[in-house]
């Protein structure tokens, strides 16, 4: 495994200097059209359910299942306001709760994982290989395997129905994936920088704080985005730890619609589903390139 470092998107060589293979491939224009057609077809299938959700969120209930087209016959934006004030609590409460949990988790992951990664990447110490192996091992451990004893721990701490079980573990670097990602990144930062700082009398913490952290910004941003999205969507833990309505997060708030939809508004449910996906969508649109490349280059090539 090597190279987490975000690689620059590979630029195609200038036209004149194309390798023969490329020339062979691009020779047939009709093939190119064919590939585009296939790709557009797949893209439509991929995105259609999401567009359908968006369009349904703007339709009156009577139209959602009778008018399958994407263009609403009549617009009903009230779905949004009704869904928002929705079920028991206003949706703004769920969003606030989700923000508290996700921001806490992001701060925790960025601090604790970068500290651990710095230690693994820059120091030699007894048992380092074993510790590192254990860290990688926890990557494969299913969360379900430790869910129940973790629950009893937090139960005994009387942390159930608070945000603490969702935030505090992130400050203890439990997401080994990000430690691994950051280790790979730090290894690509030249050691000469550390040494120069050491000559100037900096201690390891100062080196971490003033040299490594600023230089590993790309890895920190990747960590931030993925922690944000994964925590925001992490339904299982929120379902287990948050029990009262006023502590509910967005995914839990959404499930309240599920129980009621038999009687009430599908439009409102779709409206809130759309809103629930919005933070992730915005993240995706802003960081699309980094997300895809970051994933593609993380820990590949054995």
């Amino acid at each position, binding site marked *: 495994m090597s190279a987490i470092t975000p690689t620059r998107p590979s630029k*195609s060589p200038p036209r004149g200097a194309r*390798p*023969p*293979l*490329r020339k*062979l491939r691009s020779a047939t224009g009709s093939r*190119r059209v064919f*590939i*585009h057609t296939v*790709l557009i077809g797949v*893209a439509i299938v*991929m*995105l*259609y*359910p*999401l567009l*359908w959700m968006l369009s349904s969120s703007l339709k009156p209930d009577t139209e959602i*299942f009778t008018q399958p087209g994407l263009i609403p016959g009549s617009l009903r934006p009230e779905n949004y306001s009704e869904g928002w004030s929705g079920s028991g609590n206003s949706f703004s409460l769920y969003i606030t709760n989700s923000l508290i949990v996700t921001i806490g988790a992001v701060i925790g992951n960025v601090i604790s994982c970068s*500290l*651990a990664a710095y*230690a693994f990447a820059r*120091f*030699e110490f007894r048992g380092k290989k074993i*510790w590192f192996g254990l860290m990688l091992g926890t990557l*494969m*451990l*299913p969360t*379900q*395997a*430790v*869910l*129940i*004893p973790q*629950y*009893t*721990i937090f139960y005994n701490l009387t942390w159930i129905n608070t945000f603490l079980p969702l935030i505090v*573990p992130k400050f*203890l*670097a*439990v997401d080994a994936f990000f430690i691994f990602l950051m280790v790979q990144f730090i290894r690509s930062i030249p050691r000469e920088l550390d*040494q120069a700082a050491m000559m100037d009398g900096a*201690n390891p*913490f100062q080196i971490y704080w003033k040299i490594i952290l600023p230089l590993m910004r790309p890895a920190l941003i990747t960590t931030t985005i993925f922690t944000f*999205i994964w925590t925001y*969507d*992490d*339904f*299982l833990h929120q379902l287990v730890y948050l029990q009262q309505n006023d502590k509910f997060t967005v*995914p839990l708030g*959404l499930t309240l*619609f*599920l129980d009621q939809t038999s009687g009430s508004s599908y439009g409102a449910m779709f409206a809130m*589903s759309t809103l629930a*996906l919005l933070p*992730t969508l915005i993240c*995706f649109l802003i960081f699309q390139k980094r997300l*895809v490349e970051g*994933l593609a280059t993380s820990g*590949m*090539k054995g």
Partner: protein
Amino acid sequence: MTTAKSDEAVEEQAAPVTPSDRRERDRMRRRLARRRGGGWWPYAFLAPWFVGLFGLTVYPMLASLYLSFTDFDLLTPARWVGVDNYDKMFTEDPVFWDSVHATLLYVVVSVPLKLALALGVAMLLNRDLRGIGLYRAAFYLPSLLGGAVAVAIVWRQVFGGDGLFNDFLAWFGIEGQDWISSPDTAIYTLILLAVWQFGTPMVIFLAGLKQLPKDVYEAAAIDGVTPVTRFFRITLPLLTPIVFFNVVLQIIDAFKTFTPAFVISNGSGGPLNSTMLYSLYLYKKGFTDLQMGYASALAWVLFLVIAGFTAVNFIAGRYWVHYDD
């Protein structure tokens, strides 16, 4: 490490003669050793991780093992029952077997389909095309939304009786049905959801395809090798390390699936336990029925099964994964 070597060279030049020189040398050596090893510094940086590792992983694993041999409802102290939980699970719990059946079906069908689609699309995307970034983004987006409750809700409506999927079938004159509430088809809507989210392995395949040596393909082109042979004789063998990586990851992931099963069945695992994925059953036993001892036994079985699958993967991998070194 180059630094260590040059430091020693410096030391040798300054060979000691007097006791004070020797003390000076010892001090310097200690300082150098400290610099390489860092003394207590690495442990300070790792402190949060150590607390997490022992407090939230190692201890819970052991506690879970102990609890799996007890009757425990969280409120009263755990009561030792020996292997009763495991015994009950394997011999007299039909729901357990339903969940095993649903989960294995889910894993065995969804993972190969997902990976085949991911590889196919990655091969299509592995060329200079206009708008390639847009395609990649469109194919990756559903995977990013992956575990979201909102997506599962949409899925439930799409495959419901009067949902989008039946409208689609109607175009071809096929009479639909309520796919979600039929025990024969409900699990396949979950599988389709998993396959729809093929973006993560796709991106990883794409990264792998970009690293394949171009000269091999040029040689093959000169020899007039057909595209099919090229795929099976060159691309696939060279790509096996990445196929392997994706297989291991996707199997582990599939075993852990929870959210869509919960949402689509309204937390019941129905109809007739056909969507009772293992994680959902574990959740129900632990947190709905408060049978935490039994749920711990379920958790350990899940852990062992995943570890087993991963081990088998690694052993079998020796025979089909080719590393170029």
